């Protein structure tokens, strides 16, 4: 796995890089530290900072390459991710919120929106990666998200909980009500559509995880699980439809990125 750790030289970005490094602890991982400066004169200072961070990360067991670019942060990060073919781009959250972010945009938001590979947005302060919550919506893309979580779990030694949220309400007298309160175990035992999917997801994890089902609004239930379960990483997919469908569907991932108190890995394409 190729992991691109992005930093602007700030202590917050260094924290994000340290957290991101935990994704690539397997021997076949490659890590690159990327710093972007607005002024060319700052490039040397940035390089020295990155090399120091690189030495620190190497001491933790990872070998890091260093790259310094000059220009617009989001643009340079996206270019580097594309050129180097990064599997995951790791970026810290900028402090802007609300109207300021709406007006000015944000590096993280732009990278999230336009990156072709997966993106890890580091939020909050999680010292270690021990518990991962992988959300799955069903179908092949949902299994791919779980596989991505499984790959990280294998590298970091973390445990994965696969979460599926059912937000259905009965519309007719013929609705089968037990589904509205069923646990993951119930659904798997009865081999319902959701149960079969969860069984496949667990198979991807090879004994490294458990399945859970919650009932309610999708975004609310995922966030409630993150808080109640004290997870270190939230893994969600970004398998957005194209064309008209893109405008019709709500962006659940965007809501989660906005409100999650822990780092969020947005999975795109192959893990």
């Amino acid at each position, binding site marked *: 796995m190729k992991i691109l750790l992005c930093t602007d030289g700030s202590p917050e970005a260094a924290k994000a890089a340290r957290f991101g490094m935990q994704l690539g602890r397997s021997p076949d991982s490659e890590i690159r530290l990327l710093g972007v400066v607005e002024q060319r004169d700052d490039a040397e200072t940035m390089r020295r900072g990155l090399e120091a961070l690189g030495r620190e990360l190497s001491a933790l067991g990872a070998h890091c390459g260093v790259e310094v670019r000059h220009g617009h942060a989001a643009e340079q990060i996206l270019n580097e991710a594309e050129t180097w073919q990064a599997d995951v781009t790791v970026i810290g959250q900028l402090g802007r919120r609300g109207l300021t972010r709406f007006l000015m945009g944000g590096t993280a938001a732009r990278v999230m929106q336009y990156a072709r590979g997966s993106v890890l947005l580091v939020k909050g302060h999680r010292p270690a990666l021990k518990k991962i919550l992988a959300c799955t919506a069903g179908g092949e893309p949902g299994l791919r998200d779980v596989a991505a979580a499984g790959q990280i779990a294998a590298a970091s030694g973390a445990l994965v909980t696969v979460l599926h949220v059912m937000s259905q309400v009965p519309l007719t007298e013929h609705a089968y009500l037990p589904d*509205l309160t069923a646990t993951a175990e119930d659904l798997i035992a009865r081999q319902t559509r959701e149960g079969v999917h969860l069984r496949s997801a667990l198979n991807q994890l090879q004994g490294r995880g458990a399945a859970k089902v919650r009932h309610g*609004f999708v975004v609310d239930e995922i966030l409630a699980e993150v808080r109640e379960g004290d997870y270190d990483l939230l893994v969600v997919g970004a398998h957005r439809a194209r064309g008209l469908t893109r405008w019709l569907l*709500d962006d659940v991932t965007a809501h989660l990125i906005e409100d999650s108190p822990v780092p969020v890995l947005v999975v795109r394409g192959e893990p």
Partner: protein
Amino acid sequence: MSSTLRRINFAKIGYALAGLFVFVLALQLMKAGAKVLAPMLEETALLQDPVDSLGFGWLGAYLVLSGSPVAAAALSLFNGGALTSLQTFTMINGSRMGASFIVLFIGFLYMLRGHEPKRSLGMGLLSLLTTWSIYLPAMLVGTLLLTNGTLDHVHMSASAELASFMDAIFDPIVAWITGWAPGLLIFAVGVGVILIAFNLIDRALPELKLGGTEFELTPRLVYRPIVMFALGGAVTVVSMSVSVSLSLLVPLSARGYVRRENVIPYIMGANITTFVDTLVASVLMNRPQSFTIVLVEMLSVAIVSLIVLAFIYRPYERQLLRLGSWITGRRRNLTVFMLTMIAAPIILLLR
């Protein structure tokens, strides 16, 4: 016979024409009846203020098991001089609020016969709570619009030619009926006839049934609230009934489920365009202010719905579902809620 001709459903066209004819006849009868009724209502002091008429419309919807006939009756009473524009507005509001209780009441009867509350009441309760939570603030917005006269210049009524044509056709029939059913009875006959008219129009409407496979994937998807809002509004323009529009959501899930996220904005949209038949009635009434009242009704509901969608949608839907769960959570809560819903319009009317 050509294939085009074979595709035309002549029975539906027949129902549509008959429905329209009976609908206009009912409006004319209620108009004639309202003129006789107006002084009687004044004497009995039954409908003195907008709160009385709110209760009257609400209770009326219970009695005829539908909101539309009561809304049309409100317009007739306005034309006959029995109601002011504000009273007409609140009576139409009451008719829709009462109509939203009917689905819930039917579910309640199912529950009393041993069905589970969640299944029997779920959608009816969600529909009622959505309707009420929007209509109550909308009533304030509408009252402001009506009292300020903001939309007074927006009028629409049937052209003079159409009005004379309708008079030529319907006046003799109304005169014949008033000959044997004088006074108060004319209005009652009008209400009966409009129920027949809605029945005929229902038969004329296209059957909006979607196959399960067409939406095989959609139950897994969460749509933008504004998309579901527009869809609910568009479907209800055709179906003219919130409950019919809701039943259309069934094929969105093969197992009778739809997503919570998708239902509430759909109902919000449906709650605006459900007034379309009342809007048509207001044009046919041939009194320009009738149109303004219904327009204010639709506009105020639309304004409140859009504000909710734009600013507080997530907490709004959370609180709505929480309230629904609280009501159905304990039999005592549900019983108190049902009794309140039955007693409230009577109290409003007789206070």
